[in-house]
């Protein structure tokens, strides 16, 4: 095996950048004689069995890598699916939690309506409504209600005014 050809390409030019011309030439010759030693005493080659073993190991490793790649794809897919499932569950849970909140608000309002003061106020409005309805229908007898009180009060004021008038 002659290994010296292409690596020594331009070696003269390279050496001349670092050394004076005569020294560069000497170094070039030393390199050549050093390389000649390697050619004179060649190294052994690996056995055919070694190469076969290496090729088998490579094939096994390639198969392992392929399996690992597939496993990685499966794991990634499973993780993505799990994330989507969890996210969906969280969203649904939040959606369902909003409804009970609305009910609570309604219940709170109902509680307010059941408050006693409001019930009394409600009863008074109810009474005024019925009196107004009675007046509209001409059923007002003047026997009771807020309007009757006011009429009574007006009558008393008229009587008082008359008395004051006649007294001078």
């Amino acid at each position: 095996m002659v290994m010296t050809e292409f690596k020594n390409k331009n070696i003269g030019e390279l050496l001349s950048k670092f050394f004076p011309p005569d020294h560069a030439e000497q170094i070039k010759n030393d390199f050549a004689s050093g390389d000649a030693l390697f050619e004179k005493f060649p190294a052994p080659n690996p056995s055919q069995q070694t190469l076969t073993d290496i090729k088998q190991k490579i094939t096994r490793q390639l198969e392992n890598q392929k399996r690992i790649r597939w496993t990685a794809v499966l794991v990634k897919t499973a993780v993505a699916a799990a994330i989507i499932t969890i996210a969906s569950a969280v969203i649904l849970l939040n959606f369902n939690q909003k409804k009970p909140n609305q009910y609570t608000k309604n219940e709170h309002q109902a509680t307010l309506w059941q408050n006693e003061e409001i019930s009394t106020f409600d009863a008074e409005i109810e009474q005024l409504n019925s009196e107004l309805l009675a007046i509209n229908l001409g059923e007002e007898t003047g026997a009771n209600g807020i309007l009757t009180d006011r009429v009574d009060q007006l009558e008393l004021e008229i009587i008082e005014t008359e008395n004051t008038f006649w007294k001078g």
Partner: protein
Amino acid sequence: MVELCRKGEPQGFSQLVDSYSSRLFSYFYRLTGNRDDSNELLSGLFLKVVEKIGTCRPETFDAWLFKMASNLFTDYIRAKKRHEKMLDQMAKELQTETQPAQTDGYMTDKLTRQLQRLDAETAEIIVMRYYSGLSFEELAKIRKEPIGTCLSKVHRGLKKLRQLMENGND
């Protein structure tokens, strides 16, 4: 070929093993002096190539490959040193039994024996330059050294190697 490997094609890796195994085995053998260790390193290197081929650019494949080989050899040296340190702490007879220097497959040729006598860094740069076929520019880039430093190291190392080979007292 590199493109085929990058696609994970077994055929590409088969071609790769056929094309590079001889040079890489020689590289490891020159540095370790042991066939078994070289086989193991070669096998480990190709498996690393399979694992990391995606990070390599086809145009710098040779440099990338030999850089990885160099890293593996460095790890091997470290492991060996740790092993030797451990052995030093053990009993003398056990140490003698486990020293691998004279076993089969060790330092079988003169050049490899003399390369072992150089310091590991010098031996590695000489061997890498020869078997990788990389230019000094590429070697300097791999080793993260100036080109001039690489040139000097290889020159000094080859001169020393030639002296050792000529003296030949091994």
